[in-house]
């Protein structure tokens, strides 16, 4: 079974870099750091939401306010990611409640994302296997724009929701989900679409623009910033299963680390996904010299991707084939 071999190999490579005893120092679960990060982010979202409120009668000023608000909203992907791993909080119901909240707001089906992301950790940077390597690099300017603009994100996420809601899953996605759990994914999609339909119908019935200006439009125009941060995680790194090199640890400031929940330490996260986000910096201090710590910030990495890793304007794409076995 190829995925079992891949998993065993991944753990073997992890142990070559860090042993269990060392790792145990960093895997302890706590609620307080996650609550501080989450409610800190919510406070920022509330603040920018208030700016949107103040801007509603100022004409064009509404748009930059919605952009700022959208950038804040897009960072809810960070707690979504951490809670999908289940490592952000010690108290399980808190973890699951925040996972669902973030999934609904950012329009990521949270339970399916958990399966999909597990596949990403097994097959990171393996073309045709890694479910998050949707663009093999991106290798062209058009692919980069397609990725950063998040057009692909909306096609992918709404594609998941509509397909799953009618009880169908694409064969490539299905390989990551056990048959006995498909019903959960289908139910999740129906619940989420039901919530969104209720918001649309409620907005029409009450004749309010609130959902559009406080959530929908900001989400669409703000998410490219979060996508640009994500480009730094793997784009341009070798497409081979090497824990040392297939991800990138970026040097950044305290504020950015707060908004991305320390995912700038992306090598360390892939090395040991059991380590909660608030311990990644300490893990980096322990093993960072063995990892792909590029010593650059997000802007410098963005420039590197644009100038070194793109070849031409238009893409040459290959069709992705599903694996023969489930992950």
């Amino acid at each position, binding site marked *: 079974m190829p995925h079992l071999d891949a998993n065993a190999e991944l753990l073997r490579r992890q142990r070559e870099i860090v042993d269990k005893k060392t790792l145990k120092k960093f895997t302890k679960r706590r609620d307080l750091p996650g609550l501080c990060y989450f409610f800190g982010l919510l406070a920022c979202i509330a603040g920018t939401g208030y700016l949107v409120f103040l801007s509603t009668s100022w004409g064009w000023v509404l748009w930059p306010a919605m952009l700022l608000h959208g950038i804040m909203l897009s960072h809810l992907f960070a707690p979504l990611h951490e809670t999908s791993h289940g490592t952000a909080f010690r108290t399980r119901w808190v973890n699951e409640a925040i996972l669902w909240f973030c999934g609904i707001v950012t329009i990521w089906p949270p339970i399916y994302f958990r399966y999909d992301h597990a596949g990403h950790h097994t097959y990171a940077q393996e073309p045709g296997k890694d479910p998050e390597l949707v663009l093999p690099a991106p290798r062209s300017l058009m692919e980069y724009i397609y990725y950063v603009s998040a057009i692909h994100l909306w096609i992918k996420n709404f594609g998941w929701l509509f397909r799953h809601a009618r009880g169908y899953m694409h064969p490539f996605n299905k390989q990551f989900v056990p048959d006995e759990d498909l019903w959960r994914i289908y139910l999740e999609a129906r619940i989420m679409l039901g919530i969104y339909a209720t918001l649309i119908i409620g907005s029409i019935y009450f004749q309010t623009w609130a959902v559009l200006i406080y959530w929908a439009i900001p989400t669409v125009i703000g998410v490219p910033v979060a996508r640009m941060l994500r480009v730094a995680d793997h784009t341009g790194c070798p497409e081979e299963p090497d824990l040392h090199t297939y991800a990138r640890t970026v040097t950044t400031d305290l504020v950015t680390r707060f908004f991305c929940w320390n995912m700038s330490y992306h090598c360390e996260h892939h090395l040991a996904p*059991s380590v909660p986000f608030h311990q990644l910096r300490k893990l980096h201090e322990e093993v960072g010299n063995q990892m792909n710590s590029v010593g650059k910030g997000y802007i410098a990495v963005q420039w590197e991707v644009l100038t070194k890793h793109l070849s031409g304007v238009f893409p040459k794409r290959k069709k992705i084939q599903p694996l023969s076995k489930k992950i």
Partner: protein
Amino acid sequence: MVNDWVFAISADEVEEEDVMPAEIDGWDIAIYRAKGKFYATHDKCTHGDAYLSEGVVVGEVIECPLHQGRFCIKTGKALSAPVSKPIEIFETKLEDGKIYVRLRET
């Protein structure tokens, strides 16, 4: 497989809220200590074949080191995705600072 108690590991080798591996008659077993009690399960995760003894114990839950699937160490029940199949559990007893496990008959 006999239905007898078999020595697995010394109790002092397993810290509170931790897990250690033990090989018994060719079986890979994970021995847990949680809230002062000892538990045993099969060591291989039912999802990705990772060793649970390399995972993280949180209360009475073992979290797989690879994909963070979670099992109850008392019942073996799969608690959250990506795991869905339960893990096999075994009886344990503590005598003279030693943990014994009773494997099922096959």
